[in-house]
C-alpha cells in the first residue's frame, strides 16, 4: 500500500506515449507524448480542429487509438481488467464541452448519479453533499430541482462541473470549461478550479481557448499542433517560444489585452 502510494506520487498521473489516432485517412494525433504531473493544472491549447478534444476523448477511452499507450494513475488502460478500469474511472471526473447532463434527470439527480452508483450512503448525505457542490460551483440551492433544459448555458457548465466533482475525484478533465461564460463567471470558474486544486489536491487537465484561464489558473501549458505536442512549459516559456503559431497566440492583440 505504502509502496504503491509512493509510486503514485512520483509518477505522472497521466502518461501518454506515442498515441496515434486516425479517422479514415486523416491522421489526427501522430505519435503524441504527454505527461501530466500530480496536482498541477495543465492548460491544453492549440488551433481549432487540431485534435484537443480528440486527445481528451482518447485518454478517457471514448476514441479508439491506432497505436501507443495510456497510463492513468499508473494503470495501463489497455491491459487493465474491468475492475481496475472501474477504479480509475471512479477517480476521474469529466466535464464535457456541452455539459452532457442527463436531460431526463433534475440537477440534483444528475449530481447524485455517480454517488448513487459508487457509494452506499444515505439520501440525506447525498442531498447535503449536492447542496455543498452546488454552492462550490456558485449556484443557488433552488437550481437543484430544475431540469437541464431549464438552465442557461453557464449554469449547465457549472452543474456539469458539480457532477464531475461529485465523487471528489483526483483528476478532472475540463473541455473548454469557460467557453460561453461571461468574463466574471469565467474568472470565478478559474478561481474555483484553483481553490479545488489547492484544497482537494486535484489534478486538472483543461482544454481551453481562454487566455485569462491560461494566465490565472494554469501551472503549465501544452500546445498541440500537427498531431504532436509542439511545446510544453510555463506561460513564460510559451511567450519566449519562437514557434509562429505560439507567437501569434501569445503576442496577438487579445493576449496583449490580457497581459496589460
Amino acid at each position, binding site marked *: 500500500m505504502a509502496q504503491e502510494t509512493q509510486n503514485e506520487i512520483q509518477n505522472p498521473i497521466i502518461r501518454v506515449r506515442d498515441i496515434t489516432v486516425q479517422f479514415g485517412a486523416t491522421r489526427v494525433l501522430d505519435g503524441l507524448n504527454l505527461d501530466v504531473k500530480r496536482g498541477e493544472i495543465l492548460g491544453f491549447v492549440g488551433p481549432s480542429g487540431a485534435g484537443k478534444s480528440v486527445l481528451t476523448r482518447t485518454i478517457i477511452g471514448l476514441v479508439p487509438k491506432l497505436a501507443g499507450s495510456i497510463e492513468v494513475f499508473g494503470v495501463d488502460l489497455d491491459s487493465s481488467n474491468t475492475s481496475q478500469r472501474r477504479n480509475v474511472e471512479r477517480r476521474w471526473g469529466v466535464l464535457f464541452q456541452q455539459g452532457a447532463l442527463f*436531460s431526463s434527470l433534475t440537477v440534483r439527480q444528475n449530481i447524485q448519479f455517480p454517488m448513487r452508483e459508487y*457509494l452506499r450512503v444515505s439520501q*440525506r448525505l447525498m442531498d447535503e*453533499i449536492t447542496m*455543498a457542490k452546488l454552492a462550490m460551483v456558485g449556484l443557488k*440551492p*433552488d437550481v437543484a430541482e430544475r431540469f437541464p433544459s431549464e438552465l442557461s448555458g453557464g449554469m449547465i457548465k457549472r452543474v456539469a462541473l458539480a457532477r464531475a*466533482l461529485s465523487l*471528489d475525484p483526483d483528476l478532472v478533465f475540463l473541455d473548454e470549461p469557460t467557453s460561453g461564460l461571461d468574463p466574471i463567471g469565467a474568472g470565478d470558474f478559474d478561481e474555483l478550479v484553483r481553490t479545488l486544486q*489547492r484544497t482537494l489536491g486535484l489534478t486538472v487537465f483543461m482544454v481551453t481557448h481562454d487566455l485569462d484561464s491560461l494566465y490565472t489558473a494554469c501551472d503549465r501549458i501544452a500546445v498541440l499542433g500537427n498531431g504532436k505536442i509542439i511545446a510544453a512549459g510555463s506561460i513564460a516559456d510559451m511567450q519566449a517560444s519562437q514557434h509562429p503559431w505560439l507567437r501569434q497566440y501569445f503576442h496577438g492583440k487579445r493576449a496583449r489585452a490580457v497581459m496589460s
Partner: protein
Amino acid sequence: MSGDPKLERIAKGNALALCATGTWTASFAPVLERMVADAEKLAGGPQSIFIDVSEVAKLDTFGAWLIERLRRSLTKGAVEAQIAGLSANYASLVDEVRRVRATPVIETSAITITGMLEQIGRGVAGVGGTIASLVDMLGAVLAAGAHVLIHPRSFRLTSTVHHLEQVCWRAVPIIVLITFLIGCIIAQQGIFHFRRFGADIFVVDMLGVLVLREIGVLLVAIMVAGRSGSAYTAELGSMKMREEIDALRTMGFDPIEVLVLPRMLALVLALPILAFLGAMAALYGGGLVAWLYGGVDPGAFLLRLRDAISIDHFIVGIVKAPVMAAVIGIVACVEGLAVQGSAESLGQHTTASVVKGIFFVIVMDGVFAIFFASIGM
C-alpha cells in the same frame, strides 16, 4: 498516514475532544456517516465538546461536510462547538462547506386518489388539444402547399426526393416481405378451414377482396407509421431540441414549408405505391400457398381471381392510401415539433407519434368502410 477513519472520544479536563483520524474521504463515506451519527447523540450533554481534526490524513468534500454537520448538531445548545487543529490546506474547504445552508426538504409527491383522478381528467381534456393541434398542422401544411403552388420556386424538390427515397424506396424490401408472408398466412388459414366444406376455391375470393380492400393498405399504413412516422418525429424532435427549428425561423424560413411539407408530400406519394406493391406481394404469396398447399394451380387461381374481384375493390383500397399517409405525416410532425428539451420527451413523443398514427389510421379505415358501404362500392 492513511488508514481507516476513526472518531475517538478523549476527555480533556472538563471538555470532551472528538479526535478525527485517518482518511475522511468519499470512499469511506458510509462508515463516516455512521460514526458522525453516533457522535451527534452526545449533543446536549453537560460537557463542552470540540472536534479535533489535526490527525486527519486526507479530507474531501464528504469528510469536510460530515465534520461540519457534526459541528452544527453539537452546537444546538448555547455554546458553539469548535473545530480545532484544522490545517491551512483544508481550511478553505471547510469554509466552503460552512456556507452551505441546511438542505431544503425535497417533497416527493405521494400517489393519491385525487391525483389519479386529476391525471385522468387532464388526459381526457388533452384529447381535445390533440385534435386541435392536428387540425392546426393540417391547416399550416395546406397553407404552405398553397404558397408553394403560387411560388413554385420555393418548392424543395431535393428534400422531397430524399424523403421519398427514405420512406418509399428503402421501405420496399421489408414491406414486400411482410405482406408476402401475410398473404401466405391468409391463404393457408383459408384453405385449412374452407376445405372442411369443400370450398377450397373460395379462398381466392377471400384473399382477393381482403388484400385489395383492407389488408394491403392497412398493414402497409401501420408499418409506415412505425417506420417513417417515428423517424419523422425523432428527426424533427431532435432538431427542435438543438434549436435548429428556431434558427430556421430567424432566417425567415417557414419550418412547415422547409421541413414538414417535403416530408408530407413524400409520404403521400409513397404510401399508394407501397400499398400497391404490398397488395401484389400478398396476392403472390397467397397464390403460391394456394398452389403448393391447396393444390389450386396458378391458372385456376387467376381465373377465379378475375371473377372474384373488380376494379372497384382495387380503387377502394388505393384511395385510402394517400389519406392515411396524410394522417400519419401530420401526427408525426405535430409530435416532433412538440418535443421539449429532454431525451425523455423525445422518447415520449416518438412513442405517441406511432401509437396515435396507428390509431388514426384504423379510425380512418373505419370511416372509409362506412362511406364505401353507403355508396355501394
